[in-house]
């Protein structure tokens, strides 16, 4: 089942001679449980595509369907964007972006709170996620006291908190050394399989794409190549 379907997506910044075509006729889909990589050099358009799919940037044309909802179809929708993101998308960032004044458990339970979970319920589920990510013993630690790998695991826990069908990871291993990066990628793979989420990862690091189901190579706003499962 396709969790995200993008078809004929274009994004142009500016107009006339100054127009920059960041995305040109992008079409792809990702299914539940699938691990997809968008790879390409800086300026290739992968971050723009992620921003469009995250409902942050409005595409110039094309269609995006996510989890059965048409979120963009050549015109604005009356979608409550933040609510949709909260309920359907989990984000993992390059710099982890944990809230520095919340401990590991609170960083995860915050997302649950935002979705209406009670205090105890949110804390219980956050603790479960931390155990699942094998950092349950660091639940009370503040982000500043966690290693980079531990911070990224908490960030992954936060992305998983609402059990979203779709997870976007923006350069999730950029701030980690190779060993930790490989472990985080393994964790994303595990999440895609065990939680049946579509995980779309933006990266420019070719070392990290082993084990992905699909790898889309981007250049100048286009998909120039697609590699199927490498495992």
């Amino acid at each position, binding site marked *: 089942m396709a969790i995200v379907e993008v078809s004929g997506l274009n994004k142009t910044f500016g107009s006339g001679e100054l127009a920059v075509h960041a995305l040109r006729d992008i079409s792809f889909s990702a299914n539940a449980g699938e691990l997809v990589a968008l790879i390409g050099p800086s300026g290739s358009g992968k971050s723009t595509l992620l921003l469009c799919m995250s409902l942050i940037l409005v595409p110039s044309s094309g269609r995006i369907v996510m989890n059965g909802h048409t979120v963009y179809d050549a015109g604005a929708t009356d979608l409550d964007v933040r609510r949709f993101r*909260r309920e359907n998308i989990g984000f993992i960032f390059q710099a982890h972006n944990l*809230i520095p004044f919340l401990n590991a458990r609170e960083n995860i339970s915050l*997302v649950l709170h935002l979705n209406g979970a009670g205090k105890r319920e949110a804390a219980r589920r956050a603790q479960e996620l931390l155990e699942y990510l094998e950092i349950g013993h660091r639940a009370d630690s503040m982000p500043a006291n966690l290693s980079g790998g531990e911070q990224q695991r908490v960030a992954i826990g936060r992305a998983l908190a609402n059990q979203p069908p779709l997870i976007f990871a923006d350069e999730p291993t950029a701030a980690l050394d190779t060993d930790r990066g490989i472990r985080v990628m393994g964790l994303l793979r595990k999440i895609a399989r065990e939680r049946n989420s579509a995980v779309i990862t933006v990266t420019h690091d070719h070392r990290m794409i082993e084990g992905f189901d699909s790898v889309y190579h981007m250049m100048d706003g286009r998909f120039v190549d697609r590699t199927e499962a490498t495992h």
Partner: protein
Amino acid sequence: MDLAVKDIRRHLGKFIATIAGVGLLLTIVLVMNGIYQGNIADGVWLIENTATDMWVVERGRGGPFNESSRIPLDAYKSVAATPGIARASPFIVYAAQRDVGGANQQFTIIGYDVFGVLGGPGRIVRGRAISAAHYEMVADAKLGLELGDQVRLGQHEYRVVGVTGEAVDPSGNPLVYLSLPDAQEIQYQQDTQALVAARAANLKRLERAGYTSEQASKLLPLLAGSTDTINAVLLRLAPGADAEAVRKHIRDWLYFDAYTSAEERELMLEGRLRRMSAVLGLFRSLLVVVSIVIIALIVYVLTIEKIRSIATLKLIGAPNWVIVRLIMEQSLAITLASFAFAWFASGLIEPRFPRTLIFLPQETLATFLVMLAGGVAASLMAIWHALRTPPQVALGG
């Protein structure tokens, strides 16, 4: 989950330092309020606490407090004979700086007719009023004197028989009450060396004018300055007397001016106190504005420090009210805690402050409400910035 409280707990030291800083500034605002009201209260204390219906002063003068007023001692007898007056009593007032209670202190001496009923100390908290013609005094507690203490003023020692509370002149200096002759003696008393020098100078002037030494010596006492001068006459109107008619009579027949206590109070407020009050009012307005600007800047900086977290909150779907609440709560927490600090600190300062401080509850409340509104307004700039921050700020390294 209350993000503002979590942030404050995490950065408690920084918040306490901020609150202490803003709180000290607000303490100055509250103290300025206290000085403002204290200045007015001190300014009119003596007028409001001197038992009299009218003040008779030198013609054309706004005295006896706004400017000097000198009238002959005997004039009070003429005033007493005016139709409609039940009693008249001489009154002198002058500033002094002497060693009192082991310290060199500035105070104001009041001389009055201790056997009359006008002009005496209004607020004796210990002891009694002066009952002897000489060498007794009533002093304000601010001078640090106790009942029975002996104080040397000039050539004599005066025994403290009464202590007043908060009896001050318009400048906030404590009052000392003496009998009129004692007060006059202290006022006009000259040092022996100064007397000898004055005598020699006068003698020389007379001799230069052609008098023989013998003649000059006889004339010398006539050249000595008169000490029979007072600053005002206090009077009590007879029952049913028309104050305006009394005033007119004194003005036309005795060539003095007469003010009711209400007019004397108005003279003080509109004259001597007006500029001081305006300056204090301006300063406290400026301090309130500066405080609000500082709170605004602090809240803004605190928000800028969290801008990536705010962008992350937006990206993970937090509604705007979560962000607004975070900023608003912190702004209010800083404002409320700083005001509480200031309120507590001003209470500690009050008894130790060298001037009278009067904190009117309604004025403190008004300042609090202004600061509260300022705190809310201060957070608007930060909220505006936070709400305009795009969620993509959270992305990237």
